[in-house]
């Protein structure tokens, strides 16, 4: 009798424990993803129609103002609703979109676009040369992020209702790629409601904005009044930020999500064995690195930065953090980027690293902070760097921050002296697909935060001059040579810890086609089709 009572008590306690554990796990999920309400939205959406899809991505969009976004996720978020005069196809080749045709003069200073007629914005406003001009003027007058693409733009001339000419102050061959980065918004929307515009996008794309619950979901719906061939049979697409790798995979397996990016590499094998799931590998232009604030002690000593690079083993990084998918970062850009020039890798050599540290006067090492977002892979990666640098006496403190907080902490301070940033675990992919996009904003001395993404505060006048020079020449061979020089110099001065370049892994349900990830890591839903 007594014994059975005990058994009962034990059983109950076990049950209580299991329940308690389950509860706290659920709690965790909610705080991390704020998915509480999201689940409701999800079930509603599912209930409404079966021809809607859910795309689960790693991060939330920071902004949906097409002229003021800098990160890949926000860029592809805006591209789902907006279009430019020209755009990229799957291989990142330039295609006309809102321009029917374009002409470039011989030395790349005059770009004339013939615009498509009968195009209207989602709010019913007409798309014409006036609207195009208003968009460019907004970017330049308000000095929004996209302004970095328009550095040489001197004059905009309306030639007719549907014809517009851009004149540059100097030859700039990559300008066409930059035009592809400028998306056209309804002038009515941004001039009437400048404060809310980022939250209420109005474009011309095949999908139009529905709602955005920050941290939870962004919904776009098919635009039945689209000017061209719709190319999609999907009524509604929901983007869901799901930082948890495990949750994203589970969502694909259970059908809660139809497309997930990125697929965690350690789950590839498991997912490939599921016949309802397709895994796609895409070589990428994504460079993964830790930027080092070169203006702060002790990082202002090039030897310290080189030592850090010798301490970090890129092959081990790929094995541990990327499950072997990806390749070492053998330059300042990935091998898939225009004008890539291979450099000799920093050999993983602790002795050499220690020697360099000693030469710099830091044989006993020092402590520093490394920042990164809250994604699980970032955490794994930061801890890897922590372990590697511990070998040469550098004591790293890992700090994970929400994407928006992180972005604020990095891009708010006006100068290198003001910022607290020491090291940032991050990646870069040139959304415009060209060497300029993979270089200028990262290494030009005029592009330190808040102006650009030179978070290493790297300042080498020679390199800045080269970057300007490369922009000015129309000759591709000459450009290639200049970029080779830039890569060699920057790589040897090590403003980053070079970690690797990604292989993009995306997964989707076999009933879906046409959603894909471009080499720059942006997701295109333009041709989404359900079978």
């Amino acid at each position, binding site marked *: 009798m007594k014994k059975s009572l005990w058994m009962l008590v034990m059983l109950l306690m076990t049950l209580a424990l299991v329940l*308690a554990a389950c509860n*706290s796990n659920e709690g*965790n999920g909610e705080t991390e993803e704020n998915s509480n309400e999201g689940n409701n939205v999800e079930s509603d959406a599912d209930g409404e129609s079966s021809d809607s899809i859910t795309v689960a991505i790693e991060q939330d969009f920071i902004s949906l103002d097409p002229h003021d976004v800098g990160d890949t996720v926000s860029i592809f978020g805006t591209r789902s609703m907006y279009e430019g005069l020209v755009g990229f196809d799957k291989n990142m080749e330039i295609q006309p979109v809102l321009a029917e045709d374009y002409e470039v003069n011989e030395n790349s200073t005059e770009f004339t676009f013939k615009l498509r007629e009968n195009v209207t914005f989602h709010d019913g406003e007409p798309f014409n040369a006036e609207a195009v001009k208003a968009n460019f003027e907004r970017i330049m007058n308000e000095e929004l992020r996209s302004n970095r693409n328009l550095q040489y733009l001197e004059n905009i001339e309306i030639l007719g209702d549907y014809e517009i000419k851009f004149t540059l102050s100097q030859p700039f061959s990559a300008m066409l790629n930059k035009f592809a980065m400028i998306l056209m918004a309804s002038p009515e929307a941004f001039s009437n409601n400048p404060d809310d515009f980022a939250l209420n996008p109005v474009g011309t794309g095949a999908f139009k904005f529905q709602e955005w619950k920050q941290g939870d979901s962004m919904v776009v719906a098919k635009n039945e009044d689209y000017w061209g061939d719709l190319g999609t049979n999907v009524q509604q697409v929901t983007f869901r930020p799901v930082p948890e790798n495990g949750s994203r995979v589970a969502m694909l397996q259970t059908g809660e999500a139809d497309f997930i990016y990125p697929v965690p590499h350690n789950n590839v094998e498991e997912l490939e064995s599921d016949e309802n799931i397709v895994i796609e590998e895409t070589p990428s232009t994504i460079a993964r690195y830790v930027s080092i604030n070169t203006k702060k002690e002790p990082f202002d000593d090039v030897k310290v930065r080189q030592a850090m690079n010798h301490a970090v083993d890129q092959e081990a990084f790929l094995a541990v953090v990327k499950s072997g998918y990806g390749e070492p970062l053998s330059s300042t850009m990935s091998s898939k980027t225009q004008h890539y020039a291979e450099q000799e890798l920093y050999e993983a050599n602790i002795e050499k690293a220690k020697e360099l540290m000693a030469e710099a006067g830091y044989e006993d090492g020092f402590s520093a902070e490394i920042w990164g977002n809250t994604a*699980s892979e970032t*955490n794994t990666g930061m801890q890897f760097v922590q372990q590697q640098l511990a070998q040469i006496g550098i004591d790293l403190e890992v700090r994970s921050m929400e994407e928006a907080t992180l972005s604020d902490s990095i891009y708010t301070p006006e100068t290198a002296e003001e910022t607290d940033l020491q090291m940032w675990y991050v990646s870069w992919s040139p959304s415009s697909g060209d060497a300029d996009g993979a270089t200028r904003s990262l290494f030009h001395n005029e592009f330190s935060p808040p102006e650009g993404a030179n978070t290493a505060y790297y300042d080498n006048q020679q390199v800045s001059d080269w970057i300007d020079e490369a922009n000015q020449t129309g000759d591709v061979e000459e450009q290639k040579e200049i970029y080779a020089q830039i890569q060699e110099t920057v790589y040897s001065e090590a403003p980053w810890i070079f970690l690797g370049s990604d292989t993009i892994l995306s997964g989707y349900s076999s009933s879906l086609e046409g959603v894909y990830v471009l080499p720059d890591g942006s997701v295109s839903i333009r041709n989404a089709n359900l079978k």
Partner: protein
Amino acid sequence: MENKYVEMDLNEEINSDKTENRFLEFWKLFRRKKPALYSLYFILLLLVLVVAGQYITPFDHSEPNYSNILSSPSWPHVFGTDEYGRDVLSRVIAGTKIALTVSISAVLIGAIAGTILGLVSGFFGKWIDKAIMRFCDILFAFPDLILAIGIVAILGPGLQNVIIAIAFFSVPSFARIVRSSTLEVKELLFVESAKSMGASKRRIVFKHIFPETIPVIIVYFTMNVGTAILSAASLSFLGLGAELSSPDWGAMLSMGRDYIGTSFHIVFFPGLMIFLTVLAFNILGDGLRDVLDPKTRD
């Protein structure tokens, strides 16, 4: 003068005799509670691991080995290796120290504060009692973990703040339980007699009432340690407690959860340890309650 000394000696002897008897009596009863006894052995084993853990772990718990990542349990890595090639067994053993020090010190702080509040509240009554009990009610109104998350959010993440947070939410349950036994003991004859002999209030509270509440405190202490381990692990899992690189059980679960589909063992063993430890403390607490505080049974 001399006489007085003799008298005191005699007193002490009687006292120590009494405690010895009490302990023997306790042990005789407790020994029969097999599950509680085994739980006690398990906890003693954990304490051995806390003290001697660093000498008996097969590997350095923080030493990565990138050529042997995520290997399944096998010899010599009995619990397998994690995503950095670190030995999971060594990490679990190292984690014992963190789990027990955090939970025991947190509950100890909570118990001391709660006991004092409970004694004061029960003994003095009136507005002090009301004030303290309403304060406890307010704390009771929050779910423990939410309160802890709130406190850590204010103080900032880190094990030290986790200890403070857990101590904080342990206070009211100790205060309440000690208060109720104080109320009971206060009415007993020996307290009356001490009072009538002119003993000071402090003496009555600490010398006469407090010892009678010790059994209840021990029972609650043991049970709260179990909950505290779970809370500390949850906070670490959320990234609010131990650094994710440390071998804390919650942190190991947090780091390993991405690999749950492919390398089950890196979350299984820390999870199992949390489970067994919490279970052991709960069963031990139950057993102690049966023996020390038979009234509160059922």
